[in-house]
């Protein structure tokens, strides 16, 4: 059972509790798949939290991160476009220190303390595998094909990391599907964001709602 936030409204879009619950169930499967490949990549168990789905403005997302801690984040981003009409920038996000831990685990090297080209490449591949596992499961569930771009690694403060892309309409909303993935040995915790414009959120939610008959 997923856990969904209440009373979510992003003018001019409002999601009902039932829609949020359906999104939570859908992302639970997709992110579970992502965690499973994450575990295989690191050869160890990954603990999952209950998925949490909500709709935020970009500013609200930035404010939340800034309130948590004044720290830099690492985002691995890919753009996706579905045959059924929605587009999204999917972003796997970790605190910067968690990212270094992840790369140490993946490359089996303990002395990594900064991002050189090889570490960036490793992160891009980690993001590619995890995000694609998630998007592939979503595509199959929705009966569509989703074309993806190549992964792009960004390390920055929250405000710069989540700054609007070239298309101003993309600034409209962020569908946050959060599942904490914890690995004790690497002390890593990360989650996934889906940045969509309002039209894409509407299309995506309508397709998920049809799946659940709501």
């Amino acid at each position, binding site marked *: 059972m997923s856990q969904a936030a209440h009373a979510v409204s992003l003018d001019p879009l409002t999601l009902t509790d039932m829609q949020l619950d359906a999104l939570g169930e859908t992302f639970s499967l997709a992110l579970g798949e992502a965690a499973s490949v994450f575990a295989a990549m690191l050869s160890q168990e990954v603990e999952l939290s209950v998925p949490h789905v909500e709709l935020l403005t970009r500013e609200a997302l930035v404010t939340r991160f800034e309130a948590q801690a004044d720290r830099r984040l690492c985002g691995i981003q890919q753009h996706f476009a579905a045959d059924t009409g929605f587009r999204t920038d999917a972003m796997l996000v970790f605190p910067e220190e968690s990212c270094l831990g992840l790369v140490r685990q993946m490359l089996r090297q303990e002395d990594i303390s900064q991002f050189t080209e090889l570490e960036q490449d490793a992160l891009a591949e980690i993001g590619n595998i995890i995000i694609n596992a998630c*998007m*592939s499961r979503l595509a199959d569930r929705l009966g569509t094909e989703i074309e993806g771009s190549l992964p792009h690694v960004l390390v920055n403060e929250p405000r710069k990391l989540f700054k609007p892309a070239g298309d101003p309409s993309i600034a409209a909303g962020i569908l946050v599907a959060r599942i904490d993935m914890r690995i004790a040995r690497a002390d890593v915790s990360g989650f996934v964001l889906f940045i969509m414009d309002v039209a894409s959120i509407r299309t995506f939610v309508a397709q998920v709602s049809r799946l659940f008959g709501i």
Partner: protein
Amino acid sequence: MAIHVLIVDDSKVSRLMTAGLLRQLQPDAVVLEADSGQHALEVAQGRALDMAILDMNMPGMSGVDLAERLRQTLPDLRMGLLTANVQAAVVNRAAEHGLKFFRKPVTEQVMRDVLDALGARAA
């Protein structure tokens, strides 16, 4: 006789991991690497390759398109896709083009599966 294997992936880390596991299971394998479809065509030119392990999503040319190009000059080359893009549509497309399909991340078991499916027994 040593097998000659071409690994094509735009991720250096992915190529390192794939090549490392391949050498672990096939110590005498001759491993060639390319970071794009175009680079792969150049590396393959004039060489007697036995197997190719191709990523799907790469800049310039997809793994499926690359497989079609390689097949024109190397009709007996055994090829498989090793990709994170595990959508049913992509799995079906690989099958339509006669390609074996393997999902990332590459692990020792995945590499055993690759070698079995492409006709090379792991050591």
